[in-house]
């Protein structure tokens, strides 16, 4: 059977190639001998006969090449040969190979590291969640009664669950209280989210009724930390917010809720809300589950198999419409908006995704530039190496290798290098990721999962292959153009190749400069952010977060506790002042609302969107925020006093552009009771609205200038609050004293770790600093690559022109003349490259405008400093070979010919 025969030949050709080759060799030698004998028989002398025979056969080696090309699997066999040959060739010049692998490794590694980050941010499913496809968010505008109707009618979903958002729970008993983050969820929530329960069970419908025996589910982290990973914890009773809950289950390892960066460690059934939720004024308690106007739930759902997203969306809109119809058509628009289905892709909140995609695209373009520079660099190196192999290539051509074969051979060498470079890149990216995770671990942000997955490996492989083609093709084609005869006669024909090398160096210089300018703009912008005066005094500031709401004290009791706490702390010897605030600066939490001027409840005129905060007496003095006009909030601004607020200057300007804000009335919320403005304070950073993932860098910079309104803490009871303490300069152990004082006032009160204000600011600036470090690193990398490329070009040029320089020196050229000659040559290349880079930068940096803070996209300082730095480095890279050139001895140079 022909097919079998072919397969057999394929196997023989590939596995027994040596025997097949020997056989072919014998066959052709026999034919040549026979021809020779025939010619001799015809009367020619032996030498003539042999020549005639060779001519007739047309070159034994060429015939062999033709036969090899006709063989089954010829492609694989010769490719294997190319690989072996390539590896051998590289092993012969390990220095060259090491440099190329390092350069490619840096370029590919940078790309792999950033792609790994992007991948984990955009595509990695939530940890601990299986089957993330079909998971859908309906965000944050659902009341519990509305949710029940959606669940009853949602046939397009295989499951629907409501989540209450993270809240703090006090775990344990007096003296051992730990504040943990947890969430109220409806029955079946774990199944909907795709989270496994490792021990025990999740919440069943019987748990989720008001009269049920109260149960809880722990996260794996909490189970290990607090209960020593004891499987016997199931069925045990623990205290949460003072109530006794039986542990029903432990969630599978890795699962910390459906929002990256906002881990939950404890879950309780929704029906326990009235019995368990921390009390406070701004969170619905008690009848929250019965109140249709109380909108506080996130809904998560899973598509039923076979239902498409548009079908589900249509059905959900219809349900929202019916709910609106049934309840007097109020809030129809809000209900429809809440019914918008947001498919979960990766772990990020779909609302943050678009922004994250932009940041990711920007980062990828940046590292792509670094890789391009690396490619141009390697192309230059490959070309330089190819020039030293002109003779080798000429011989191979003469021996019958076709041009495509040579191109393939050279591309294969490039491929071997690129794959090794890719391997080096993976190692480098692994180190970078470890460093990044180690840095993030020092913060409360959950570190991203940067482990390699198939997508990252595929990306690295694809980038390596692309690199092999981009860096290898031009040199390969150039070299294959070599005329075999000229090559053997030792004439390379160097003109065009030198031009190509110059073009490559110009490209490197241009792209590196473009990158450095981009990085420079960013670094300057980030430096501005870093040196932004937060508007408050950082030194000797301490914070500690407590949550009296978890104790479920009645309002009066809670307010009294807060007064007692502040008084006790202020009395501590090391403490100068103390106050409290709802959203401390740079805490990644804040509230936002509309502020309406005037007392007329019906009027919506002149509303300004502002950040909201609640602050205790003496907050501004404690923080060191100057009061511009009017007065600070005081202890007497309580529930029995007239309602008052303090605004910052930004809000005062916006609300009352013409006149003084003091004494004017505003409403914080349209239907809220009017409050008199008693003070105007300077702008200062306050609670940050951004989630800790993508927006932190950008939002931070706009934080200070935001309009803000401060309400007195004692006019609205807050469950959770942060104590701010200004220690006396030089006072020691204030943190321990503050913790002790809190425990002394109420042993049932849990307290977070006491932190300094400096730590808060550092944390807030961490993303900016990381980003600046990253950019600076990449910028230096690009600059280094361009310098190496330039230096290589100049050295090669000096080497090539040794003879010419020798002649010039012999004819009386001075060292200065030679120096000028070589440096001038280099400067021309750099000047073209710098011109190119500056032009590109002027054209493109405007797209960065939205990401820059306080720096113009065509900031002259950055452009000048970066260009000067670049020219300086370029001059050094040129000067070294130039100095070599001045040492050319004319006699030696001329004798070399």
């Amino acid at each position, binding site marked *: 059977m*022909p097919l079998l*025969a*072919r397969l057999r030949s394929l196997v023989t050709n590939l596995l027994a190639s040596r025997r097949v080759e020997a056989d072919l060799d014998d066959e052709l030698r*026999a034919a040549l001998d026979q021809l020779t004998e025939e010619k001799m028989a015809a009367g020619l002398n032996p030498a003539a006969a042999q020549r005639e025979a060779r001519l007739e056969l047309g070159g034994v080696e060429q015939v062999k090449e033709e036969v090899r090309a006709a063989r089954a699997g010829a492609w694989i066999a010769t490719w294997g040969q190319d690989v072996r040959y390539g590896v051998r060739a590289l092993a012969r010049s390990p220095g060259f190979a090491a440099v190329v692998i390092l350069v490619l490794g840096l370029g590919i590694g940078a790309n792999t590291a950033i792609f790994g980050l992007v991948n984990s941010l955009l595509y990695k499913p939530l940890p601990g969640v299986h089957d993330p496809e079909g998971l859908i968010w309906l965000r944050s505008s659902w009341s519990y009664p509305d949710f029940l109707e959606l669940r009853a009618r949602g046939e397009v979903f295989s499951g629907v669950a409501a989540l209450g958002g993270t809240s703090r729970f006090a775990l344990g008993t007096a003296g051992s209280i730990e504040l943990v983050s947890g969430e109220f969820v409806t029955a079946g929530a774990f199944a909907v989210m795709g989270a496994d329960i490792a021990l025990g069970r999740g919440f069943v419908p019987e748990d989720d009724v008001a009269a049920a025996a109260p149960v809880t589910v722990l996260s794996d982290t909490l189970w290990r930390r607090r209960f020593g990973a004891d499987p016997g914890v199931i069925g045990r009773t623990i205290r949460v917010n003072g109530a006794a809950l039986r542990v029903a289950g432990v969630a599978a390892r890795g699962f910390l809720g459906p929002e990256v960066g906002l881990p939950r460690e404890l879950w309780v059934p929704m029906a326990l809300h009235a019995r368990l939720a921390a009390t406070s004024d701004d969170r619905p308690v008690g009848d929250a589950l019965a109140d249709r106007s109380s909108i506080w739930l996130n809904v998560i759902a899973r598509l039923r198999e076979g239902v498409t997203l548009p079908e589900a969306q249509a059905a959900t809109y219809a349900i929202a419409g019916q709910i609106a119809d049934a309840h007097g058509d109020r809030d129809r628009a809000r209900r429809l908006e809440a019914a918008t289905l947001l498919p979960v892709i990766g772990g990020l909140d779909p609302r943050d995704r678009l922004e994250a995609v932009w940041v990711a695209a920007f980062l990828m373009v940046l590292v792509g530039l670094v890789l391009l520079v690396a490619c141009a660099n390697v192309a230059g190196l490959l070309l330089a190496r190819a020039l030293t192999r002109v003779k080798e290539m000429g011989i191979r051509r003469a021996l019958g290798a076709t041009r495509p074969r040579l191109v393939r051979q050279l591309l294969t060498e490039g491929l071997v290098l690129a794959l090794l470079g890719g391997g080096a890149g993976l190692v480098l990216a692994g180190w970078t990721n470890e460093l990044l995770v180690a840095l993030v671990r020092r913060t409360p942000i959950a570190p991203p999962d940067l482990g390699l997955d198939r997508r990252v490996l595929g990306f690295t492989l694809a980038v390596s292959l692309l690199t092999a083609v981009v860096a290898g093709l031009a040199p390969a084609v150039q070299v294959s153009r070599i005329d075999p005869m000229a090559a053997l006669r030792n004439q390379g024909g160097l003109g065009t190749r030198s031009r190509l090398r110059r073009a490559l160096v110009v490209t490197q210089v241009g792209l590196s400069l473009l990158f450095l300018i981009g990085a420079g703009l960013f670094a300057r912008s980030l430096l501005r952010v870093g040196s932004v005066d937060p508007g408050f005094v950082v030194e000797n500031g301490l914070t500690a977060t407590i949550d009296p709401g978890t104790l479920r004290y009645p309002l009066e009791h809670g307010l009294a506790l807060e007064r007692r706490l502040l008084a006790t702390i202020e009395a501590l010897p090391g403490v100068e002042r103390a106050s409290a605030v709802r959203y401390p600066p740079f805490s990644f939490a804040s509230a936002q609302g509309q502020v309406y001027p005037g007392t007329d409840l019906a009027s919506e005129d002149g509303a300004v969107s502002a950040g909201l905060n609640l602050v205790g007496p003496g907050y501004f003095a404690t923080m060191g925020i100057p009061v511009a006009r009017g007065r600070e909030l005081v202890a007497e601004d309580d529930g029995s006093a007239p309602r008052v607020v303090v605004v910052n200057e930004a809000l005062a300007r916006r609300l009352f552009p013409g006149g003084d804000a003091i004494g004017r009335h505003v409403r914080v919320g349209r239907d809220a009771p009017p409050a008199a403005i008693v003070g105007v304070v300077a702008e200062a950073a306050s609670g940050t609205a951004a989630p800790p993932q993508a927006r932190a860098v950008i939002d931070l910079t706009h934080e200070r200038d935001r309009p803000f309104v401060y309400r007195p803490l004692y006019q609205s009871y807050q469950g959770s609050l942060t104590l701010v303490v200004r220690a006396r300069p030089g006072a020691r152990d204030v943190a321990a004293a503050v913790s002790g004082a809190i425990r002394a006032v109420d042993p049932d009160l849990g307290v977070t770790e006491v932190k300094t204000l400096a730590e808060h600011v550092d944390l807030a600036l961490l993303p900016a600093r990381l980003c600046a470090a990253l950019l600076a690193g990449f910028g230096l990398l690009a600059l280094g690559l361009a310098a190496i490329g330039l230096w290589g070009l100049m050295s090669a040029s000096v080497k090539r022109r040794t003879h010419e320089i020798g002649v010039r020196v012999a004819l009386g050229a001075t060292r200065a003349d030679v120096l000028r000659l070589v440096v001038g040559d280099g400067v021309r290349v750099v000047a073209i490259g710098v011109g190119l880079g500056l032009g590109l930068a002027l054209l493109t940096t405007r797209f960065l405008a939205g990401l820059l803070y306080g720096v113009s996209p065509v900031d002259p300082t950055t452009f000048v400093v970066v260009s000067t730095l670049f020219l300086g480095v370029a001059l050094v890279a040129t000067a070294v070979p130039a100095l070599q050139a001045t040492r050319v001895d004319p006699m030696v140079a001329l004798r070399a010919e």
Partner: protein
Amino acid sequence: MAPARTELLHGTLDLLVLKALDLAPNHGLGIARRIEQVTQGTFHPQPGSLFPALHRLEEQGWLDSEWGESENRRKAKYYRLTRAGRRRLEKEVASWRQIAHAMNLALGTS
């Protein structure tokens, strides 16, 4: 006078090789000689295409090869038709005759 050497039609070399081996096994040079002889010098296969063709036909299972001794007592690689090769030859000959007949008709040769 020897007739002008003609370029081999694409694909006909395989058929000529198979035909040349129809009567008896032969080595590479012998096959070339035989083709030249039976076509009265019209075709003169170049080694550069003959040897690749031989190897290709062998890989397809139509030829077999073994080392033997040539007429002047030299070692040579002999090719012979396999059964599959013989069937292939019959098929090729039939289809060639058809083409030749059709071409003759089309060109109006007497």
